[in-house]
């Protein structure tokens, strides 16, 4: 369990890093960005990933920040997940993102793993994917031709693939703060505390006259990328979030999924069942938090 040989770079600035990626690309070398290493290092050790070069962003302190910008929170890509966990701003102004953060691995993993690293890695079981989808987050990506903003709905391409070119770096994620009165919930099922989720769901909604409005439901851990459940959203919109309605919305959402993943812990059918359960529970909890 030792990595195959690779060249290692640790640029001091974002500009250097971007220039380095362009240079490596020109030389036809396969470079991987190291942003905490909680996923990449095991893949290297198992020789599942065999890049020619690693570009480590750890020295780029300018990418480590949590900033409030009006009704948006901007998180630098190299901010550790434990910094996000400890942030009062995130906890009080965007509790759904905070809850998602708490469910990522264990504290030791969150100390080393970065927010940007998780988004860029686009692991299907990553909590942040569903958070991005329901919150409508934006990703800032910087490359040789400057920066571009990618909305969450376009960011996830497929399994372990986000819309980031091999010469680009994800530098920041932006999340809107939770609007007053919005109810939210984030739940997952994992075998043990801190494990990859077998399935998970995130919900935001408002209650107007006792019925659900502006419902966003996203699930993760079931398909290659986090998925919005439009049919379930449509079903519950305009209805009260009773146990029965929520259960039916969960069923509608689960039935509408593409064939879920299957692995040693969970069959596709079981994952579908979990989504029905979790969506229903999230809807009830979110409604209980809405005002």
């Amino acid at each position: 369990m030792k990595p195959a040989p690779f060249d290692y770079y640790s640029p001091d600035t974002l500009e250097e890093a971007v220039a380095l990626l362009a240079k490596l690309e020109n030389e036809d070398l396969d470079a991987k960005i190291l942003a905490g290493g909680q996923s990449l290092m095991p893949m290297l050790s198992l020789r599942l990933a065999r890049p020619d070069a690693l570009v480590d962003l750890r020295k780029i302190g300018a990418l480590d920040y949590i900033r409030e910008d009006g009704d948006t929170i901007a998180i630098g890509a190299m901010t550790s997940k434990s910094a996000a966990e400890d942030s009062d701003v995130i906890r009080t102004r965007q509790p759904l993102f905070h809850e998602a953060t708490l469910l990522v691995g264990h504290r030791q993993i969150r100390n080393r793993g970065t927010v940007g690293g998780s988004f860029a890695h686009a692991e299907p079981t990553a909590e942040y994917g569903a958070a991005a989808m329901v919150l409508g987050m934006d990703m800032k990506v910087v490359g040789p031709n400057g920066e571009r903003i990618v909305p969450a709905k376009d960011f996830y391409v497929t399994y372990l693939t986000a819309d980031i070119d091999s010469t680009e770096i994800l530098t920041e994620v932006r999340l809107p703060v939770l609007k007053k009165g919005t109810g939210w919930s984030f739940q997952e099922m994992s075998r043990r505390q801190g494990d990859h989720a077998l399935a998970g769901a995130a919900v935001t909604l408002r209650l107007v006259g006792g019925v659900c409005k502006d419902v966003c439901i996203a699930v993760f851990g079931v398909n290659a990328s986090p998925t919005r459940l439009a049919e379930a959203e449509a079903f519950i919109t305009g209805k009260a979030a009773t146990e029965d309605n929520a259960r039916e919305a969960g069923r509608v959402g689960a039935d509408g999924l593409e064939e879920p993943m299957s692995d040693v812990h969970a069959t596709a059918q079981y994952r579908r069942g979990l989504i029905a359960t979790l969506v229903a529970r999230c809807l009830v909890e979110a409604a209980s938090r809405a005002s």
Partner: protein
Amino acid sequence: MSIEIPGLPEDMPGAELKYVGKDVKRIEDPGLVAGTVEFIDNLDLPNMAHCAMLRSPHPHARITGYDTSAAEALPGVVAVITGEDVKRWANPVTTAPEGWGSYCLAVDKVRFVGEPVVAVAAESRYIAEDALELVNVEYELLPVAATAEEAIKEGAPRLFEENESNVILSKTYDWGDVDQVFADADHVVSETFFWNRVGANPMETFGCVSTWDTVNNSLTIHGSFQTPGFMALGRAFSLNLPTNKVKVVSHPHGGSFGGKGGPRGSEISSLLSRKAGGRAVKYIEDRVEYLLAGAGQSWDRYYDASLALKADGTVTGFKVKLLDDQGAGAEGYGTISIAKPIAAFTGCYRIEAARYDLNVVATNRAPTYPYRGYGPPPHNYVLESLMDIAAQKLGLDVAEIRRRNYIPPEAFPYTIPSGNEYDSGQYEVTLDAALELADYEALREEQARAREEGRLLGIGVCSVVEPGVFDWNAYTTVGIQGVGVPEGAKVSVDIMGQITVTVGFSLEGQGQYTLAAQLVADFFGVDMAGVRVAYAATDVAPPHFGPGGSRLGVSITGAVLGACRKIEEKFKLVTARLMQCEPAALELADGFVRIKGVPGAEMHIAQVAGTMLARSDLLPPGMEQSPEATYVWTAPGRTEPDEQGRCKSYLTAANACHVVMVEIDPGTGRTDILKYCVADDCGTRLNPATVEGQLMGGIAQGIGAALFEEYVYTDDGQPKVSTFAEYLVPTIHEVPKTDKAVIVTPSPFTPLGAKGCGEGAIHTTPAVIMCAINDALLPLGVQARATPASPNRVWDLLQQAK
């Protein structure tokens, strides 16, 4: 010479015990906490090379060719070995029944995914792994026997082609008139059970550093060995060396639980060292290697079992048919784990007749190895589940049916139908203690309320016997010979009166060094902090086995106290001569040899030892100048088994009753443990904190087996588990706090009355959790009969019930 070893703590010399029976702090811990303990990967020998192994990607294939030339040419590569070298230099392991053991590297064919095929030694592990990518092995794929059921079919592909079939052992044991008791029964309950493959996962995997001295043709292996003497002996046979030319140095290791699969790793690194002209070669097994093909897989079983019952709930007969998947041969002493349940076959109960019908089969899965408990945990799961099924059939409470069948306290020592003798016990007292601790009636009331709300609450009550202090005679019946497992200790008093205990096993986590120090300190009446416990490598150690079979606590107590007694006798002879009194007038207390009842008439043990070492003129005639003694203890009264495997095998029978409440989440199939209560009787507790640690560890591993852990294979024999993302060991979050009650029924047969308790709760926990889950599922009409009861499995049952 007969040595009288104290049978109870009050038989120790001196008025008061300061250490034995107390929660003393472990002498092992300062080094562990400070990081100064030399685990094997910390060992760096001069000019040492590093080993990596190319492993089979196929479950079953013939090797038709090797090309290692590119690997040999890679700069930094020191040596490469293949099955051809092994065929020339080594033999198959001797720990399997004849014809069912493998060579350390695949010879001619591979039989499981992960089997080592080619090994490389290089200047670093990185280079060694790079070199593996340059090796080319040609395979001709063979049909696969992926499960035991497939492997016993007519025409199944044979793993060991020189054998007639894949059946390693097929045997039926009959104890009592089984057919008659089943014919006479008022009721018979039967069920089938799957116990899926689980095993040991110590924090530290196996590791070793081997040095083949090509001048003296001798071998030294440093490593994380649980049973060093036994390992040295085995390597001598496998590697064609005289037994006195193999030295094993066991380093402190991070747990074992039976899973440190030393044989293959130490033989491969030794042969690499031989090929590299005697350079030391280190092999550190990584977790992927461990999970795929280490010694971490055990107990892959299908049971079909029945109980014969009388109308009043008396159990009269127990029949077990077992189909056991050993994996690719029986190299890991695999047949032993089938035989061990014979030592407590009928559990806590008076069951007059029993039958054990075995089919032990080779398949293209990884070979199985020992795991804590060594076979009985699945057996107990079967017996205890049947007791619950019987209770339902008769409308009895699960505690009540057990109570009606216990062996009563006055019946001990009690010989069970399968031949072993239980030393002592008070099973009903243990049950009542557990029920009281749990407030069982209140739990049942809570369950009734929860059921009305549609919640799935279940309660399990299980009583189990833990056979302790193993003896090889238990395994004669499956081809392993021997009666008596020696454990030796040397106790030495130096010229300054400082005491050293020398033993043949190294630190593994259970605290036996502390126990040795406690015993010596109390025996001589000295400060425990002054007692040193030293490890001796196999070339100089007294006869020993080490931890295993819940024996070392009892065995080392016997060995240390035996050695202390011998010294006491010598010291009294010397002192009697100097003080001109009879030896019988003397007593040993507080670090002095004293004339009883004469204040001030005493010599400190330093004076006695100093006299012995420096003043031969003052010694009794013919006395050796040796203030030290070695004593080798073994369990007394062991017998050779008869044709039905019946013998006195395990010396002690500890007993526990666990009461557990679980709740199943109907939406996810997840099981949460709400309450866990244990009443436990392992006789005299020499260090109660250590006993509690053993108990908790066993509960954790039992929870793993019941809810989380499983080595999964595909239908074509490919393992789906290769990392801890697939193999889920419970963590602190998954192991509940427990309430505990202590019952002490000393053993009449052991030093100080202690019973083996090292394997502990793993005997009970899987059974009680499965029973609780099934109690929770009872209203739905479905039952979980396969372990682990993973959320997916339980969810599937919940769908069936809809």
